[in-house]
């Protein structure tokens, strides 16, 4: 007599798993019942803050998280209101969004694309988030942006500086407030020309991923337009730690300028080691050797200590600006945490408020309504001067800061000084610029 291998429990288990698997795409589309993914039904709405809390960009991520929490407080009517007091739009009244209080969940991207995607997926599927904000590192931001596009939620990018985020990898559901590699090059070029002239031999050390590649391309194009020569571009692994074997060949390469396309902990290490090798004290081609760090952050500056003195770079925003928005945000953040906010914190805070405001103006959390409200949206009072979200690529356009390591910092927070506020017109570019070519913004996906 044959014995059946089926058991009641086995059939039930298999049936439940198969059912859940079949239901998942329907859940993700969610159109069948609400019209868009994760439409909030109760008295609250949930945001997902997906930032690196470990890994080479962890310090930036933790500062982003502080700012995101502060933004939620302000949206919900707690604290001093921060930038809501200076924002040109007055739709947010401190009573949540469309009558719903904001809650949030957090995730650790570990600065790894696969981990970041898994974390964002969990936020969308398990926690029911309507918006994901964060993503230090462009590789992570691009990966999560793609996921949000497919899932039908809005992605408000945080610290991502690669041209590709709003270039070949742009998505209709993704929006970037932060500036990009092209803008850094356009802002830095004239200052570098004034400071170092037209005849320089530049050696690039470049982080080997999308951000490093596009920043290097942008800075090389900008400096070559001045008459500089790019002698060598060496790709270095992210998180290499000891960069000495990449720095040693520079000593006798004939280059008189080192451009470090590194960020976070990598930049701290490579800059420190470059100075240990005596590059800053060197004379080549009759010129003082110089080092440039195109993308700066206050947290990197603090990590690099006195090594950044006199080193030029660029930033999206800095707490030392004197406009009302910057003062309001710095006061709000500084009183809560005891130190000034970083540029990464600022961009994530602003993105959270911009999303909330767009929902209010659209009158819906439907991502397509929100996207429409953000496209070609002009605003002011957020610390960057008059700003526009360009509809054709979802890139924000605003002034860019050229910074320099302060020669005589008076405290731990003013290690960088603002050299120039580069006007927005100087860093603008057409949407079909070759550095941003390829890709397709596509259509907004509400999850249908």
């Amino acid at each position: 007599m044959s014995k059946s291998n089926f058991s009641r429990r086995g059939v039930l288990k298999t049936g439940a798993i198969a059912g859940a698997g079949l239901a998942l795409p329907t859940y993700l589309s969610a159109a069948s019942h609400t019209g868009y993914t994760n439409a909030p039904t109760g008295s609250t709405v949930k945001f997902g803050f997906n930032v690196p809390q470990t890994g080479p960009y962890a310090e930036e991520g933790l500062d982003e998280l502080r700012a995101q929490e502060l933004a939620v407080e302000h949206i919900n009517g707690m604290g001093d209101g921060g930038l809501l007091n200076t924002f040109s739009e007055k739709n947010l009244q401190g009573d949540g969004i469309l009558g719903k209080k904001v809650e949030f969940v957090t995730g650790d991207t570990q600065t790894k694309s696969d981990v970041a995607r898994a974390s964002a997926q969990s936020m969308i599927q398990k926690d029911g988030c309507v918006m994901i904000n964060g993503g230090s590192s462009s590789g992570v931001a691009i990966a999560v942006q793609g996921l949000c596009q497919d899932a039908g939620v809005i992605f408000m990018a945080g610290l991502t500086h690669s041209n590709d985020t709003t270039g070949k990898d742009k998505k209709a559901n993704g929006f970037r407030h932060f500036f990009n590699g092209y803008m850094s090059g356009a802002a830095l070029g004239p200052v570098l020309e004034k400071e170092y002239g037209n005849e320089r031999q530049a050696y690039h050390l470049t982080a080997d991923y999308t951000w490093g590649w596009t920043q290097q391309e942008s800075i090389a194009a900008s400096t070559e337009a001045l008459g500089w020569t790019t002698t060598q571009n060496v790709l270095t692994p992210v998180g290499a730690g000891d960069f000495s074997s990449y720095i040693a060949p520079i000593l006798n390469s004939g280059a008189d300028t080192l451009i470090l396309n590194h960020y976070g902990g990598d930049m701290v290490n490579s800059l420190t080691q470059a100075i240990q090798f005596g590059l800053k004290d060197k004379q080549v081609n009759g010129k003082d050797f110089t080092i440039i760090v195109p993308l700066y952050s206050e947290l990197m500056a603090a990590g690099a200590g006195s090594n950044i003195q006199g080193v030029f770079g660029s930033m999206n925003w800095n707490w030392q600006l004197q406009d009302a928005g910057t003062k309001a945000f710095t006061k709000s953040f500084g009183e809560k945490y005891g130190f000034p906010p970083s540029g990464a914190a600022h961009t994530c805070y602003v993105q959270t408020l911009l999303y909330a405001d767009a929902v209010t103006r659209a009158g819906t959390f439907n991502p397509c309504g929100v996207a429409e409200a953000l496209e070609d949206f002009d605003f002011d009072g957020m610390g960057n001067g008059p700003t526009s979200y360009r509809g054709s690529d979802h890139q924000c356009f605003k002034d860019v800061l050229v910074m320099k390591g302060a020669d005589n910092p008076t405290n731990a927070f003013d290690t960088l000084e603002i050299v120039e506020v580069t006007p927005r017109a100087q860093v603008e570019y057409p949407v079909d610029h070759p550095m941003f070519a390829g890709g397709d913004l596509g259509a907004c996906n509400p999850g249908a």
Partner: protein
Amino acid sequence: MDAFILQILNGLDKGSAYALIALGLTLIFGTLGVVNFAHGALFLIGAFCAVTVQKILGISFETIDPTQTDFLGNPLKVATPYVEKWLGTDMGMAIQDWSVPLAIIVVIPVMFFLGWVMERGLIKHFYSRPHADQILVTFGLAIVIGEIIKAFYGANPIQTPAPSTFIGTVDVGAWLGMDPGSVAYPTWRLVYFAFSAVIIAGVFAFLQFTTFGMVVRAGMADRETVGLLGIDIDKRFTFMFGLAAAVAGMAGVMYTPILSPHYNLGMDFLVLSFVVVVVGGMGSLPGAVLAGFMLGILQSFASMNEVKALIPGIDQIIIYIVAIVILLTRPRGLMGRKGVMEE
């Protein structure tokens, strides 16, 4: 030629760190038979001993300077370290400047004690367990130590500079009769190399020329027989664990001016050091040192632009390629002993 010498120096420098960590790993494996994946964490703790000493020497009292304001517009709080108040500004600043070498004095007893606690409190319970269990528990311990350090010190690298006397470069080219300035190498990296050579020589001398060392070597060769002679070999092996921890700690302290310490530093070195141990031969102390320097130099040369132009990405994989080749041709490693990890 300049580039060649620079990469040799670089390789010796990297190799020093690998050799010091691998030496400790091999010492523990050779004596206790434990595969200690937490050894990188001991290097990490050593590095953060230097950070801690720097922070302790920087403990300050605050005075209000009404003539200046902070970033919020409040009167500025000016911090003055207590050492400067107690010992005078010049002496206080000099002591803070020498915080890394001073940390060596602190790190030896601290690491010895931590090593002893680690061995008696955790590792000894895994002596008779399979190597896989030992790897899992020590790897877990390494993660816990890293996270504790992150909770206290944050995730960003912390600048721990060398004394100002050692900042700058040494004209190695001039020493070698080449054009002045043709081969300039950072002073502290040369100090690190010399320091490593002294520590490695010291450990070998201790094992070779002392009675204690002789007993330990005998125990490494045949633990049971030494035990039958009435010698408490376990106690000596616990001491060796402490010694290995102290060596890793000192390596970590001295490395801080080269690479600003961060919570994941131990993991960065751990994998490479294990490859070094395997290439050198499990349980072989000279093998660990030889392989450390050899792989350091190979890695340096693989990073040269000329080499990378021929084989892109070779700098990332050279160590593993060498490990594969060595293990295929000499399965016991360069200087491995028969019977180690072969049961």
